[in-house]
């Protein structure tokens, strides 16, 4: 369609030989018989380049054609990429293949594959819009009535698309979703955070004033522009360029991020630290937790996660995935937490995982940005006034709650737990079951500070001694935390946040 129209308009870019022949004939007739044209003396017309309008129309049409062809090209490439993703391009055990698949899937997330795929139809839509504009511009010169019909249809299309975008932005449940709506929905949080990060009020005021001046100026200009159709149609390729620029920006950012990560990984490997295998395992676990709804699968995964030695930094998605699992097996009835029937084990395990990972993060990086994202998720399920009584993992819930809501009164709950719990424990018969050490080290810290830096409670210290005297020695995190408890009792307050080397590598 585009190409047909271009072929139609194309000859007008060159001088028409027929016109020239006619003019010459006229001159010939005039030479033979002077009376035919009266007083009009025919002249040989000089070709002074194609008309301005035709050049504009051609430029827009070719942009449209190029955009549609380019999106076809990208679509072809996209099919190839999808095939490559689907293929098992590796021999090896099931574990290696699965890890390879996870690597490819992570690549899809890091390189914004989805965004690029979504922007393909967008380019085609712009190509169509450009075609409509070029048609109406071309027809305007020939016949205003026909042109207004085409213009009307085009603007109706634009208006309905704008309606779809607005409707999709306002309501998430609206079925007319477009990529534009998705982008628009991201803007208010971004703008809010930008406003928050603005250092002083005067800066904000100055910025708003500047923006206001700009927009009023722009508004005046655009009113004039609307009256001039040609300028308006010429500004449309710019939108296409912006679309391309956004894609390029995303790709560049991803590229930078990946290259920095690669450089870091290379550096770490050079120094004998290979985080690749553990990180991949964690990514696989995180993916399963986010995707699966099967209870047995979740149980198996969480059980594995508990026994893992965590690297110093990991994907915060893992914590949110665990919290999501937890939120699925818990119902919050008017501020009182009840664990759903049949999900007790899952709830217990997910609480343990959350606690051990949160504790891990607070130990390594107390000012981590991880909490910001996870806190919103947590507060949605467990607002600050939440009652955790009658849940089996009561104390773990309390500690997690205290991490997210520092104002939550841990003292009463902890003391209650501590007096309830203490007489039942005989460490001699105690079997290591879960990450009790995480709970106990937290409690030891708390008690230590409460008693003005005197001693760790004896029963916690006894737990530490018991764990350290086990044969064979329990997993590294247990040993590390028990040594930490002992160290605290000896008065080593300085290393309250040990570095990864001290805790996991050298032990």
């Amino acid at each position: 369609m585009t190409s047909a129209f271009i072929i139609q308009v194309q000859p007008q870019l060159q001088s028409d030989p027929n016109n020239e022949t006619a003019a010459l004939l006229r001159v010939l007739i005039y030479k033979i018989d002077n009376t035919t044209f009266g007083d009009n003396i025919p002249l040989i017309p000089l070709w002074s380049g194609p008309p301005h309008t035709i050049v504009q129309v051609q430029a827009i049409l070719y942009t449209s054609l190029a955009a549609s062809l380019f999106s076809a090209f990208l679509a072809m490439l996209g099919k190839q990429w999808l095939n490559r993703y689907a293929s098992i391009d590796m021999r090896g055990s099931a574990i290696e293949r699965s890890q390879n698949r996870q690597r490819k899937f992570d690549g899809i997330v890091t390189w914004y594959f989805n965004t690029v795929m979504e922007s393909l139809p967008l380019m085609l839509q712009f190509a169509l819009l450009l075609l409509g504009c070029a048609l109406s511009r071309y027809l305007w010169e020939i016949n205003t009535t026909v042109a207004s019909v085409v213009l009307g249809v085009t603007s109706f299309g634009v208006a309905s698309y704008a309606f779809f975008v607005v409707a999709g932005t306002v309501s998430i449940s609206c079925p007319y979703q477009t990529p534009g709506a998705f982008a628009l929905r991201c803007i208010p949080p971004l703008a809010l955070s930008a406003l928050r990060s603005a250092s002083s009020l005067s800066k904000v005021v100055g910025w708003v004033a500047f923006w206001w001046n700009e927009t009023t100026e722009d508004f005046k200009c655009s009113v004039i522009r609307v009256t001039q159709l040609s300028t308006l149609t010429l500004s449309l390729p710019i939108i296409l360029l912006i679309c391309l620029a956004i894609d390029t920006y995303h790709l560049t950012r991803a590229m930078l991020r990946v290259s920095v990560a690669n450089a870091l990984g290379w550096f770490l490997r050079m120094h004998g630290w290979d985080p690749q295998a553990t990180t991949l395992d964690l990514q696989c676990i995180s993916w399963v937790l986010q995707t699966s709804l099967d209870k047995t699968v979740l149980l198996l995964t969480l059980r594995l996660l508990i026994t893992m030695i965590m690297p110093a930094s990991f994907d915060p998605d893992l914590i949110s995935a665990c919290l999501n699992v937890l939120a699925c097996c818990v119902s919050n009835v008017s501020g009182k937490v009840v664990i759903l029937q049949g999900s007790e084990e899952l709830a217990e395990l997910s609480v343990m995982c959350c606690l051990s990972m949160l504790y891990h993060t607070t130990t390594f990086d107390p000012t981590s940005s991880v909490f910001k994202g996870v806190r919103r998720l947590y507060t949605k399920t467990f607002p600050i006034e939440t009652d955790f009584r009658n849940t089996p993992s009561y104390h773990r819930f309390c500690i997690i709650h205290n991490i997210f809501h520092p104002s939550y009164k841990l003292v009463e709950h902890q003391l209650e737990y501590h007096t309830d719990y203490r007489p039942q424990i005989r460490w001699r018969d105690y079997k290591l079951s879960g990450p009790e050490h995480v709970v106990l080290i937290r409690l030891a810290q708390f008690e230590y500070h409460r008693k003005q830096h005197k001693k760790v409670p004896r029963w916690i210290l006894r737990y530490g001694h018991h764990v350290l005297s086990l044969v064979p020695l329990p997993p590294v995190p247990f040993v590390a935390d028990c040594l930490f408890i002992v160290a605290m009792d000896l008065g080593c307050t300085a290393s309250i946040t040990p570095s990864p080397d001290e805790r996991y590598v050298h032990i």
Partner: protein
Amino acid sequence: MLYSHKHDPPPTQEDYWTKFYDVYRREAEEYDREFIKRYDEDLNTTLIFVRVLCSSCLRRADSGYRPVYSLL
């Protein structure tokens, strides 16, 4: 059956990992099938649209058929 079950060694960490990756592969296959199908259909739609955009030109060259817009 029961006898052999009793004397089996308890599952080790490796057994758990193998089991986990079996489960992972099953989940991944299902997910990837959906994922690829979705984008493949999207890409097909794009290609059909492009073909519609360009097809009228080809038909005109072949059989002298004049598409609507070339009448202008």
